């Protein structure tokens, strides 16, 4: 078990199973098919992401370096949250990018019944350590426990 400390972008506590992307998450490519065609598991549809393609993202602790791709990324993440198909939490090894920040903040400010804790700056060691299937717990003040 290891603890990591990051910065809180969206508050909340949660415990969930990890899914890990070592490359950037293309938000549009990953979520579009799931949101368009009613897939409640939000199965990742990005064929260019070998770590996540075909895996469930909804309800999981999504561990990643950053998001990449189209500037629709933030609103796609907002839609995933509004449709209750969002990850349980998003945990970034790097400082958050502008698209992921937008999606997280829009959901936090504009959706009353959605809680998706978002922590950034967890460091490269976090992504080196965490593996698919591990249990990740987001605690107060940006503390993330992986076991």
């Amino acid at each position: 078990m290891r603890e990591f400390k990051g910065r809180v972008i969206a508050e909340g506590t949660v415990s969930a199973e990890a899914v890990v992307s070592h490359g950037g998450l293309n938000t549009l490519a990953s979520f579009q098919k799931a949101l368009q065609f009613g897939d409640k598991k939000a199965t990742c549809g990005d064929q260019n992401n070998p770590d996540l393609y075909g895996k469930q993202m909804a309800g999981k602790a999504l561990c990643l370096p950053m998001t990449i791709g189209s500037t629709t990324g933030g609103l796609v993440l907002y839609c995933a949250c509004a449709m209750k198909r969002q990850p349980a939490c998003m945990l970034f090894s790097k400082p958050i990018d502008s698209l992921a920040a937008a999606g997280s903040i829009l959901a936090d400010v504009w959706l009353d019944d959605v809680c998706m804790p978002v922590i950034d700056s967890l460091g490269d060691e976090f992504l080196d350590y965490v593996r698919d299937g591990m249990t990740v717990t987001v605690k107060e003040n940006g503390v993330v426990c992986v076991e």
Partner: protein
Amino acid sequence: MILTNEQNEILNGSKGEVLAKVMKTMVKYGEAFGAEKLVPVTSDYNHLVTSFGLKMMTPVFELMQQLIDAGAVSTQKFSVDPRPLDKNVPANFLQNFIFNNFMYATQESYEKQLSALGLKDDKAFTCTCYMDEVGNTPKKGDVLSWAESSAVVYANSVLGARCNRNSGIIDIMGSVVGYVPYFGLLTDEGRKATWVVEIKTTKKPEAQLLGSAIGMKVMEAVPYIKGLDKWLGNELDDGVRTYLKDFGAATASNGAVGLYHIDGLTPEAVELGDSLVCDDAQVYVIDDAELERVYKNYPVIWKNINASPKLCFMGCPHMSLQQLKDWTDKVEASLKEAGNSKVVIPTVFTAAPDVLEKFNATEYAARLKATGVITSYICPLMYMNNPLCGKMPVITSSNKLRTYTTARYYTDDEILAQITKGGNK
């Protein structure tokens, strides 16, 4: 973050609950990046990325309606990305049925929302809003609240405006409240280069390939590119601006570049030169072999990699007027050489409605039509982003389209050969 009295009052609800939430969104967005203040948006027009009435985006339409109902509409008129539908573009019965009745069933109602929010005019649907024909061309130093990665990188790099890589919704909210947080590419420090790219090719590099190589290497960093002025010259004329449009779109989509400087060419590089480069900048050398390596490594995600192309898309981002004219000449000449009268693969050239209007007034329009090439204002990316079109073997010389869809990339010369001769002859 330190707010002015006016900003604080808005945040506390002086102009209503909805505008307070808009301000709260912009403040939190800025805080995530350590912004210490909000600065006024100064451009004449805004540009939004969200042009499509895709059913999955219902939560966005509901949010937009909250803004409209509260009178929290844009303080600027805006252009927006291209429409996702155009009856000129080939589609079979099933595709048309699904596009119109399922995927884009909310297109009409969403366009009404855009009008209510401040859409510039009915023709303002393009990703190349900065072109002279369209008229949303920011001035050097203007502060923008734009989204659309290819437009943002062009505005920052070629025009010298200042804009972060904003997400959709953030784009409209910055304009509604009239302020954006001061961080990243808005600041002098954030516009400094942390990479130096040295171009050592033996010929003018393909814009889309060069942009892709740089984007994948530097990701979100600012590159300072040396040696490209040898091939492009030192003047931002029409041809160079077109090259940089395609180059920049590839840097932004294959990586996450929001600003590049080109030594001796782009405005800030001409003005400030090497002082734009950070002391500890990394170096990336690009020669012919490196471009070849990048090209060879693109995954082909067609089910059958030997399939015959069913469609060719050119114009992601939308083509310029000169590009349409040049390609008319090239297609005609190549068809003549091959002994063909029309293109052998259904081919669509896309451009802004205002650019197409100008093109259609020239003698080139009839000539291009005679070759069988179709012109359209559609967004190729939105056309491709569904399971029906995603399975089609589509070819393109757009590295952005390649990145976001199943379209297969070829260089301009290879595309020309494919559509006029049926192969890389």
